[in-house]
């Protein structure tokens, strides 16, 4: 009875070996491809072509309708790191880099406001190490952004950064830093970046309820309505309008983000790519789609074919009324004859 079990064990081991070698082969092939791709991209001619193509595409889209507020759920950094066998930290760093590139593109497209879900209140449940890494990374990126927003030569010059969320959960030094950066970038008005850092939408609503109640008690605003309520949210008047929400990495849910902003007439796009892989073209296609359909929608609202315009401008007296007509004014019907020949 022992023989078959040994064979079985060996068989299983062989199978495992095969799977492992296959995985390694795949990984090797993948990395070779990546290297080749990177090499091609580094050719000056090719990169020149790529940059120019991007420029032309951006300038073209910019003359049409563009969403005012675009929002990102940056999901998939860790899976990205895992798939490339990198430490988790690298994944988050790559994610931060993607965000900066896309921000620049959004700014050039003429988008007024971008928001990103950087850290959820629920994320405090993650291992402490990772939370610390994220915090550190966040401060570094914050400094970098502030510096770039003030640099006249930088493409991100003139943008404003706002950190929204429940800041009582952060350390005092962190809060001080955030305040400082917000002050530095205060006077940028072309472009606003909202970073949702410890944020959940329910928390946002709760905070707004509390604020409204407090205001009511101090008799600042005797009547509460939806508009006032919306303006009190973390993102101010941008809260009411989020035209495009993009979620990466395949989940089809909102995960407590932008519930209030998105549940009415917003387009929600789900993408299966991981956030660090989310490229210019993927986003460009989404915005082009939005722009295409909103052009048609606007046209339909305006009703403005030439015929309709003329028809509208003619006073109603001159228009023939087709429906109101007496039966006796109709032309006579053909003669009626019965098959039985009755008179």
């Amino acid at each position, binding site marked *: 009875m022992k023989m078959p079990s040994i064979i079985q064990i060996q068989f299983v081991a062989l199978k495992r070996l095969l799977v492992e070698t296959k995985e390694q082969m795949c990984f090797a092939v993948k990395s070779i491809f990546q290297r080749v791709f990177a090499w091609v991209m580094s050719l000056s001619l090719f990169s020149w072509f790529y940059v120019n193509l991007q420029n032309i595409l951006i300038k073209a889209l910019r003359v049409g309708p563009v969403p005012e507020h675009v929002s990102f759920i940056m999901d998939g950094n860790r899976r990205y790191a895992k798939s490339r066998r990198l430490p988790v930290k690298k994944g988050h760093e790559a994610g931060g880099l993607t965000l900066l590139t896309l921000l620049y593109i959004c700014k050039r497209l003429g988008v007024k406001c971008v928001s990103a879900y950087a850290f959820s209140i629920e994320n405090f449940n993650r291992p402490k190490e990772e939370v610390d890494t994220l915090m550190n990374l966040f401060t570094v990126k914050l400094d970098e952004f502030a510096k770039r927003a003030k640099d006249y030569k930088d493409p991100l010059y003139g943008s404003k950064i706002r950190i929204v969320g429940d800041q009582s959960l952060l350390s005092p030094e962190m809060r001080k830093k955030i305040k400082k950066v917000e002050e530095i970038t205060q006077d940028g008005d072309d472009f606003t970046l909202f970073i949702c850092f410890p944020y959940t939408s329910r928390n946002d609503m709760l905070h707004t309820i509390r604020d409204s109640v407090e205001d009511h008690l101090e008799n600042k605003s005797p009547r509460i309505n939806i508009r006032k309520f919306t303006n009190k949210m973390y993102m101010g008047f941008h809260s009411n309008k989020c035209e495009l929400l993009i979620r990466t990495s395949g989940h*089809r849910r909102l995960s407590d983000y932008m519930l209030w902003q998105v549940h009415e007439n917003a387009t929600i796009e789900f993408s299966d790519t991981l956030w660090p892989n989310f490229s210019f073209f993927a986003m460009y296609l989404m915005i082009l789609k939005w722009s295409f359909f909103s052009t048609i929608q606007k046209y339909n609202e305006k009703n403005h074919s030439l015929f309709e315009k003329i028809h509208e401008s003619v006073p109603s007296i001159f228009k023939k009324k087709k429906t109101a007509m007496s039966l006796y004014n109709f032309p006579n019907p053909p003669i009626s004859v019965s098959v039985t020949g009755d008179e």
Partner: protein
Amino acid sequence: MPTMIKKDDKAMEPPNEKPHRKIERDDVPESSNHIPPPESGVLKGGKVNSKTRALKAVTSIIADADENPQKKVNNETNGVQKQKTEDLSKRIGKFEYLFYKFLLVLLYICFGLFRYGQYQYNKMKLRIFSIIYNHAYTPQLIRQDVIPLKKIPKRLAAILEVKPVGDVGGGVTGLLNDASEIVCWTVSAGIKHLMLYDYDGILQRNVPELRMEIHSNLAKYFGPAHVPNYAVKIPHSNKIFYNLDGIETETDVGNEIEANQEKDKIAIEISLLSNRDGRETIVDLTKTMAELCAVNELSVSDITMDLVDSELKQLVGPEPDLLLYFGPSLDLQGFPPWHIRLTEFYWEKDNNEVIYSVFIRGLRQYAGCKVNVGK
């Protein structure tokens, strides 16, 4: 370019004929004031969306150079930004500006062609799905489809909408029929709670008709002698109706005996929601809390997540696990925002009917999904 309309849409809307007016009350608005997001608004079709019309719309942006939508928005907001965008056409020069406009139209046309192909592909896929997934009005088959799944949602929600009266399955009767079909599938699948949402609250206003419709449809699935018990709930006005209590019909008499045996066992609870349960309810809750605080019955520090959550659970209902949408592209239509925190969405691209394949595929997706709050 893309036809977002079905073939039979072209012959829709016989003039001035509303055969279903009987059920529709006077207070029902003709069209809802909900503005859908661009894609779903265009894809839903209707008279105005034809291929030529889309082409005209797309090319029209060359003509109205002055009416750049970006500028229009900025005029309203403030003067500083206005100046800046006005520079846009000057800064890059008139000729270049025109060139980019032409390029954009070209891009639009390419995209439109691509989208049209995608639309046809999706429609074909949907047709195949409707052959593969067929319930054949048999609850056993539906249960058979559900059994291999690892898990099913506890609470299901669905967004419904009224279609134009002349369409197949349009008007209020179409809506009622759709609602009752979903009820039947949900009962057969073994899900105990169902939330039905429609923007204007038409279902809420037609509760008697809805109950009759559900009853007759359940009778069709389970046979007239074994109609499962159901409760229709309107959280907004806090009313519950059981089965056909209070409505007299011919089938009611024969049903009496059976109902007595299985009494108290409700197979499904249906809550009807409308736009009123969304933002407005939250604002109303705020008002009530403000008043309570004013008379010192509640302090501001007492307002916590748990309190608000439990209040909203009372007013609207618990959070659904899966939300089905039967339109061409996801449009939440103002579904109560507090309640979609972790809800999975499911919709089928370019689909515009309430069909069984969306239901069962939605359940399949839910069975495969992994929920990890914060992790």
